[in-house]
């Protein structure tokens, strides 16, 4: 399984990343999720902070776990940090497999676990006000769904 994990300030190109997962011809299916900054009220800037090295290590552990659950040929995870605006891309999870079922499932699994395990924090700016985004219990519930499945 080829794995690419990148934490970066720059934007990413979905088509190029999917192309990278399919060049060897092994994958019959690529499922991808792209997360964007949602425009909510007067949100002007979303700033993402992370824990360098642990972030990459934690995502690598999640990808390895996905690789034990489904037959995957490649996984790419890109997460942006720094200052983002409404509409900007934040995260990409792209999963390649021989068949669609594994690709769909592993993509959702990785997003659910990334949201609850990867050490990123979002701070919202609304006018002069700054505040840290609170975590959602619904995200934890989404990750727990996978705990009993294999």
């Amino acid at each position, binding site marked *: 399984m080829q794995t690419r994990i990148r934490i970066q300030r720059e934007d990413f190109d979905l088509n190029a990343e999917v192309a990278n997962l399919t060049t060897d011809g092994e994958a019959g299916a690529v499922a991808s999720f792209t*997360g964007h900054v949602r425009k909510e009220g007067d949100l002007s800037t979303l700033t*993402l*902070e*992370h*824990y360098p*090295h*642990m972030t990459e*290590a*934690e995502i690598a552990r999640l990808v390895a776990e996905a690789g034990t659950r489904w037959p995957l040929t490649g996984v790419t995870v890109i*997460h942006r940090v720094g200052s983002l605006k409404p509409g900007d891309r*934040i*995260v990409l999870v792209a999963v390649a497999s021989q068949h669609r079922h594994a690709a769909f499932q592993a993509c959702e699994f990785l*997003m659910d676990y*990334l*949201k*609850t*395990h*990867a*050490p*990123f*924090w*979002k*701070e919202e700016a609304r006018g002069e006000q700054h505040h*840290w*985004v*609170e*975590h959602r219990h619904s*995200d934890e519930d989404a990750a727990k769904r996978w705990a009993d499945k294999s």
Partner: protein
Amino acid sequence: MNLLYFAWVRQKIGKSEEQMAPPVSDVAALIAHLKNLGPHYADAFADLSRIRVAVNQRHAGLDATIGANDEIAFFPPVTGG
């Protein structure tokens, strides 16, 4: 040990990293030690239900054993994705 703070934990304590060698052997005792260092620390650790811990870049619990060469990070529940 090397301590790291992120997000509002970093802001409340007023620094992102520091080294210290307190006489503690688990995370809970380290937090108790930190809370005695001043009001900024006491404020940051006032509600432990809002604090998450990593030891050597892995998620850990308050009962995790720690030693002099460990990296211990404190942060709020994560909000990436």
